[in-house]
């Protein structure tokens, strides 16, 4: 089973999904990610799905679940790099990923996290 690597950049965790997601690797990713969030005390999680070309309702739910878990652990989740075709598919499936923030690319995702941080605390430490 392929494990999705989790990268740490400052107090942000970056997950770049480059493989075809199987159900098992998704569950493993959820566990790994929640452990790493606790371990590092990260304030943000960015999930990069630029390389994901095909989505189904399971992956849509996975994104929402990861966002919910991270929020419980006080980290904001941002999904970045969604392809147009993927976005259209999700809309057709009736999944609007409520509660998940999105950004066009990794750079804008990081900027968005900093902006959220800035609005929550006046001290933008990152």
């Amino acid at each position, binding site marked *: 089973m392929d494990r999705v690597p989790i990268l740490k950049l400052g107090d942000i965790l970056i997950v770049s999904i480059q493989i075809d997601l199987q159900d098992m690797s998704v569950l493993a990713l959820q566990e790994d990610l929640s452990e790493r969030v606790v371990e590092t005390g990260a304030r943000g999680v960015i999930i990069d799905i630029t390389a994901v070309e095909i989505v189904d309702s399971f992956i849509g739910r996975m994104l929402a679940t990861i966002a919910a878990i991270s929020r419980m652990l006080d980290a904001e989740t941002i*999904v*970045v790099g*969604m*392809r*147009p*075709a993927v*976005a*259209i598919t*999700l*809309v*057709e499936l009736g999944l*609007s*990923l409520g509660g998940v*923030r*999105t*950004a*066009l*690319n990794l750079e*804008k*995702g990081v900027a*968005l996290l900093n902006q959220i941080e800035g609005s929550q605390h006046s001290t933008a430490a990152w």
Partner: protein
Amino acid sequence: MGVALSVHADAGRRRIEELFQEHEARILKRWLEIARSSTGGTGNQADRGGLADQLRELYQALRQSFDDSGDLSDLRGLLAELSRDRARQGFTPTETAIVVFGLKEALYEIVEEDGSPEAVRGFIWFSRVIDDLGLFTMESYASAREKIIIDQAEQLLELSTPVVKLWEGIVAVPLVGTLDSARTQVVMEKLLQTLVDTGSEHAVIDITGVPAVDTEVAQHLLKTVVAARLMGAECVISGIRPQIAHTIVTLGIEFGDIVTKATLADALAHTLRASGVKVVKGGESRIAVRTVEG
């Protein structure tokens, strides 16, 4: 009985083939006259020359098909070409069909002169062949017309969906004309792709040119906005005219937290504000420029 009939038919058919050979020049001339009179003199001189050539080719192909024991593929190819040409040039179906059926009339005059029973029997057989070819011509004509319509619809689709850049990070889609599923799909894909390509976080969908909004169109618009939101961009819908606003409310369509503006200018102002650009009136700065110059 069947055998006897077919023997008669064969004899008739042979007679027709002979007549075709003997009176080639006459039949062709008469055929051309009939074909020309059908077009009512609308064609110019060059077209008429072309028609004579086409008829001669058809005639040759028909005679060839007699020799090849009824293989009509060459003839059908020529006919398909003729009817395609005519469909493109805007001839009516009747004008196109009469070209084929004219041959029947042209031959009938020859058969009448001949007067033999074989020739009459053969004419019935020949008449059936021509009817088949006539139907084939109509089919080619109709399919050529359909192809033109499909091509035009595609061209319209390409023409009518530009995505324009209004500002750094702001794109707009001015929609003109009736929205249907196919068009919305194209608009949606093009807009989302532009968002990715240009890295724009704001989009304005302007529906000033959309004559009517029903539940279906509203649904399409909402889908586009949600898809853009999933990708991390915000959409504003602008150009909602009073009647359309009325319709939307009457239909009970919920736009939720989607920002809607009356005019494109309002939408642009909103997106500029959202992306942190400040617009100030230029009156004072002009004075400032003058002082620098002075």
